[in-house]
């Protein structure tokens, strides 16, 4: 176990390194991505020219004249030695501060959505499996395949149309109260919920067809007991895997949802920074998201350990 942890954490760190390198070089290598132009653009505002003195000042402030490899090494050493991930071109503040300010909103949104996924997806999946091929099952399946196929940004707009403009139940955008959370969380969770329903249903059906369930019935156990105590945990294994993967997708989805609902999180920060070519912030956001994804995958592995006694990590 100890060895496993070391190996696992080591590989996470390596992955972060690889990702940081790839994004750093990619952003600096693509034409139109030269940091110099970026800085000039972000400093003097849209449609205005920067003077050469400003360019000088700025490229020396951000070390932009040095070769990219040197810039990268400086960035890495800064990050490792001082926890300094650079300074945002647009905000003129340390990237860490910019991101930390936005992180809670994204985490809240992602967790709320995960909650919806769990509370809605799992019971509906089980219900659908138990009522296989009955009308309710068919309705749930059709609804879930539709929900899976709906573009997230479109769903977000439609939710606003219906629940904000039409019914006036929730604010159209913004952040602050639990009311503000409802629509973004719904929109973000929809796809994953639908997938969860399907996986849970498949897993449940597969489990219900297993001999140990037949044996449990033969033991004279009541149906409800069999489903909750025997089938559920076994059917949960694939769901846990899928949710681990889909957590990453939800983090990606926050980009869309946050933008539409003016939710001040990492996702909208990332999009705005990409559009503003704020390379240090883009780099930081990507790293944070990758780190979160890796952590969740790690947590999923540990969760497996808790659920499935057959699994051992060496």
């Amino acid at each position, binding site marked *: 176990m100890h060895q496993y942890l070391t190996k696992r954490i080591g*590989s996470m760190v*390596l*992955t972060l390194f*690889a*990702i940081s390198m790839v*994004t750093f070089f*990619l*952003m600096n290598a*693509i*034409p*139109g*991505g030269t940091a110099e132009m970026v800085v000039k653009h972000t400093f003097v505002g849209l449609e205005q020219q920067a003077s050469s003195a400003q360019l000088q000042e700025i490229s020396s402030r951000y070390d932009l004249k040095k070769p990219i490899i040197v810039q990268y090494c400086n960035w890495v050493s800064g990050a490792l030695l001082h926890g300094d991930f650079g300074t945002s071109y647009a905000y003129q503040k340390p990237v860490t501060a910019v991101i930390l300010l936005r992180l809670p909103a994204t985490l809240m949104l992602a967790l709320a959505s995960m909650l919806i996924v769990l509370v809605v997806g799992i019971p509906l999946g089980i219900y659908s499996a138990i009522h296989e091929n009955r009308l309710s099952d068919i309705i749930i399946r059709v609804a879930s*395949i*539709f929900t*899976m*196929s*709906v*573009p*997230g*940004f*479109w769903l977000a*707009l*439609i939710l*606003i*149309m219906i629940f904000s*403009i039409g019914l006036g139940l929730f604010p159209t955008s913004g952040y602050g109260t639990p009311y503000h959370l409802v629509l973004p969380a719904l929109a973000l969770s929809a796809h994953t919920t639908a*997938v969860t329903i*399907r*996986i849970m249903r*498949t*897993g449940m059906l*597969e489990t219900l067809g297993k001999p140990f369930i037949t044996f449990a019935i033969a033991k004279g156990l009541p149906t409800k007991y069999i489903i909750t105590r025997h089938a559920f945990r076994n059917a949960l294994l*694939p769901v846990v*895997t*899928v949710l681990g*993967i889909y957590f*990453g*997708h939800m*983090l*990606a989805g926050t*980009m*869309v949802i946050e*933008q539409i609902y003016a939710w001040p999180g990492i996702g909208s920060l*990332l*999009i705005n920074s*990409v*559009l503003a*070519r704020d390379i240090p912030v*883009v780099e930081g956001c*990507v790293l944070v*998201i*990758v780190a979160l*994804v*890796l952590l969740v*995958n790690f947590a999923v592995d540990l969760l497996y350990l808790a659920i499935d006694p057959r699994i051992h990590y060496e």
Partner: protein
Amino acid sequence: MNESRMEAGKTVPVRFGSFPHTWCGQSARAMLSHRTVFIPLVLLGLIACCAVCAPLIAPDDPGAIDLKHVVSLPSSKHLLGTDYLGRDVLSRLVYGARTSLFIALATIVISCVAGIVIGCVAGYQGGMIDLVLSRGIDIFIAFPGIIFALVLLGFMGPGVFNLILALSLTQWAGYARLIRGEVLSAKNENYVLSARTVGLSDRIITFRHILPNVVAPVLILATIDIGHVILSTATLSFFGLGVPADVPEWGSMINTGKTFMRTAPLLTVIPGLVITAVVVLFNVLGEGLRDVLDPHDGMEAFD
């Protein structure tokens, strides 16, 4: 011993409602007789026809601007109304099918080819190369690709070519993993070993013996991925990072239409429904194919 004797006169194992695992030959008919394959296939074929014959079907030039009649409601001249520049919405939807399907197909083809090459190399070479490649595959699978696509497009600028490139980067890993696994398991099977001792080159072995085995799972994955790619294309276009503004595309139609959400909700609603419908069809088709071709596997396509 007596046991194996008894097994000798075995009937086909009763696995109700399923087909044998081999997919070639007899199952082509089985596939088409399967409702969840046949119906979406026909509908998607129709949509593809519309896309190909767009100039014949579309009532209007999708780029024809008519500033005197912007955001008009459906009429006999414009069945679905006009957009913010007075362009015919129906025509743009029809041409949009071209854009979306072309991008999706091109992306999937490139991803497949890249995935097959990388998967084969990783599976065959083994050792350090495999270690590095499969680590890369893992990263790309674990990491939400659309973020890469967005960052990439944000810096390269929108454009059909850029979009295909960025989306391919997000999709190849699934195929690579699939094929690497298949190559690894096939590598030790007798027929490959014997083919090797006979002196066939690795490439021939791969193409002759391994690829036919992965056609079914790749087909299933590709079908469901096309749906994903269509959604991603729409999402990126929604942010103005997909196709250029004058190319008709469903996602950018929603983007420009959302402004008129209250005055002309159809401009937002219809392209969204079209995307949903097409993606539903691909999802249903993918599941149908999986039921027919790969009855044992319930999970692969979801990750």
